[in-house]
């Protein structure tokens, strides 16, 4: 008895301000070490290579084209997001499946806090894996000499989307703790992305632009990141949208009655649940705000601009020193990103420039201009002295393969397309020109440049870049006149063109007035 009363009293240990964060970090560390997400990462990596990287290699070596499928249309998100949602649902349903919900509710930490730690571990693994996968394929692109600017904003969108998928999947698992939570979260996420793609393909304006699989008006122009910067307006709105979903889902986790309980202090968790409700509402509000911002997007030459998010500094063109060559004594200058096509362009233009040399309106210089989102662009001759402007970025038939159509465009085909565009521009034909005399003269110039007669209808359709009539055979009065003109001696044709070009361009000539 005496011994007991003499024993020293154990001092009360007061918790320091650092204890809570440190213990939370320990909890996070444990969750990180035992996270199931790691198990599926090798499979996701393989799918990432198969679905996101492999198809992109068919594209021309420009960042905007190589990443069109995987970033612009959101396939990196589709490859990672559903798996992450499924695994997050599995992790979140752990306590419910094992029947240990009551047991873990009696621990010192509030239920919401421990769940957030579980989610954070899942999200950290998922986002880190996503960034590593993207980093690897971007590294491969860089090694392959892909030109232009890297679309960093879309990487941010993808990382936020993966985090949002993890939060949404976690919420599904937390509220429906069942073996079916994981497949439902995964396939539900995939279906949401597929439906989002469907809406994205259909809607070119309005709220649907906020969907991360929608490339319309913001990622489908080749000269983004070459002549002008990628406009970050839409990616910022998408990041806000996805962050809002993430926050709302995390807030939902704190709403159930047991979520805020902190057993050691006997608190009811009322404040915690109120906080969770506020967080949920904030998330919903942020999501709604992003949708509203996307609805105000308007097309600009560089892509979709959102007035509330737009920074005019992004409208500045990207400085560059052109690379130049010569075609029929005419300087031809391209953006250095297109350096690999300079020889093909000069070889293509030389035969037609030779024919028109010395004629009124014949270009004295050829320069590449940016293809833009609002007008796309067509080959034009303007100014004094006349300059031929070629928007190569609007050309979907650069030599090589393209993800937009099957087969390979040969250098000859590419050259003929450029010649056709040049002759259309030289005779003053606009989009969907139906002036027979102009078409006959353009056809004659092409025939004299070595283009086969049978190819003329198809080239005309490509050159005019508009929905024209169905391509038919090279027969009829226009093609007959073109063959007649092409057969004239050089000097005769040159003299006739010198005398009649102005009238021809004004549309004042008919087929009967051609020689």
């Amino acid at each position: 008895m005496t011994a007991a009363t003499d024993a020293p009293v154990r001092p009360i240990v007061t918790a320091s301000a650092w204890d809570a964060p440190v213990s939370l970090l320990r909890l996070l560390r444990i969750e990180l070490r035992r996270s199931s997400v790691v198990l599926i990462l090798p499979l996701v990596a393989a799918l990432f290579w198969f679905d996101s990287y492999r198809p992109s290699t068919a594209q021309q070596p420009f960042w905007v084209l190589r990443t069109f499928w995987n970033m612009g249309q959101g396939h990196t998100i589709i490859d990672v997001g559903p798996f992450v949602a499924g695994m997050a649902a599995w992790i979140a349903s752990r306590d419910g499946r094992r029947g240990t919900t009551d047991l873990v509710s009696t621990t010192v930490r509030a239920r919401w806090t421990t769940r957030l730690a579980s989610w954070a571990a899942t999200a950290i693994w998922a986002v880190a894996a996503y960034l590593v996968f993207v980093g690897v394929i971007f590294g491969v692109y860089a090694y392959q000499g892909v030109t232009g600017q890297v679309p960093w904003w879309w990487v941010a969108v993808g990382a936020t989307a993966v985090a949002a998928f993890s939060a949404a999947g976690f919420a599904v698992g937390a509220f429906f703790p069942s073996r079916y939570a994981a497949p439902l979260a995964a396939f539900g996420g995939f279906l949401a992305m597929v439906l989002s793609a469907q809406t994205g393909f259909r809607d070119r304006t309005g709220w649907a632009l906020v969907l991360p699989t929608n490339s319309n008006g913001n990622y489908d122009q080749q000269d983004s990141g070459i002549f002008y910067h990628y406009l970050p307006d839409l990616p910022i709105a998408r990041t806000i949208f996805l962050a809002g979903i993430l926050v709302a889902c995390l807030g939902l986790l704190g709403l159930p009655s047991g979520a805020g309980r902190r057993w050691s202090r006997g608190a009811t968790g009322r404040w915690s649940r109120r906080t969770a409700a506020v967080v949920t509402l904030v998330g919903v509000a942020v999501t709604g705000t992003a949708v509203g911002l996307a609805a105000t997007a308007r097309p600009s030459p560089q892509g979709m601009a959102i007035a509330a998010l737009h920074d005019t500094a992004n409208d500045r063109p990207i400085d560059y020193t052109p690379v130049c060559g010569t075609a029929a004594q005419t300087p031809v200058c391209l953006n250095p990103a297109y350096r690999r096509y300079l020889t093909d362009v000069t070889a293509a233009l030389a035969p037609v420039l030779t024919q028109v040399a010395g004629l009124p309106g014949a270009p004295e210089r050829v320069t590449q201009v940016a293809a833009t989102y609002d007008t796309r662009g067509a080959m034009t001759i303007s100014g004094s002295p006349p300059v031929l402007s070629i928007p190569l970025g609007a050309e979907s038939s650069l030599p090589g393969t393209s993800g937009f159509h099957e087969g390979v465009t040969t250098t000859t085909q590419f050259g003929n397309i450029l010649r056709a565009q040049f002759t259309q521009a030289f005779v003053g034909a606009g989009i969907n020109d139906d002036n027979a005399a102009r078409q006959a003269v353009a056809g004659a110039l092409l025939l004299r440049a070595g283009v086969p007669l049978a190819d003329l209808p198809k080239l005309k359709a490509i050159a005019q870049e508009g929905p024209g009539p169905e391509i038919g055979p090279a027969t009829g009065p226009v093609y007959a006149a073109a063959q007649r003109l092409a057969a004239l001696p050089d000097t005769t044709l040159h003299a006739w063109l010198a005398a009649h070009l102005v009238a021809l361009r004004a549309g004042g000539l008919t087929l009967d007035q051609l020689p």
Partner: protein
Amino acid sequence: MTAGTRTSPAATEPGAVAYRPVGAGVRLVRLYAVSRRVPVALGLLAAFGALLGTALHYHWSIAGGLAAQLVIPLTIETGAGAVVAVSLHGPFGEPERATGRWLPWLRLGTALALTGTGFGALAVGASAGVLPDGTLALLRNFAGTAGLGLLSAVALGGAFGWVGPMAYLLVTEVALNGHPTTPWVWAARPPHDHGAALCAALVFVAGCLAIALLGPRDAGGNAAPG
């Protein structure tokens, strides 16, 4: 106590059920089905059927050609296949394997019954609209993905039976954008392609055999009820 004086427990214990082979068999099947959450699976398969019907009726189709229009029905069919696979997840692990001599037949029966029910639900749902590739392709695609899910359950654990079908769906989605010649991507092949049908059937048979003989993998600490 002699043999002649032994009485059955049913006769001595109040409330005990007399041993009847047929009744015990039915009870075994019922308990097995409940432990595998088969009633929930049936509800989910019906929901997938309704979802397919809604998607076809309201034309939830991707803009583009026939191949692109297949994506949404295929996603729903694959999701249903994943539900079949996840249903085979066993919550009891080693004790059940050690004592349950009917387990292979129960697993096989459950897999076949759920696949049949799932196909029925999807076929009924598809009648609400026009399924791009028809009912034969639906049977092929659903059986193939269910088989893949069963194989996935054997390899990864019943709870992760959805991983294989999901991965296959992503592969198929890419293949739909091209013109695959391999019959192993059966969902991207025409409906009357014999090679594709054979591959899907092979995968389904392999999945059924594997799940019956081997059972879903016991994923250690993750083999929790649910």
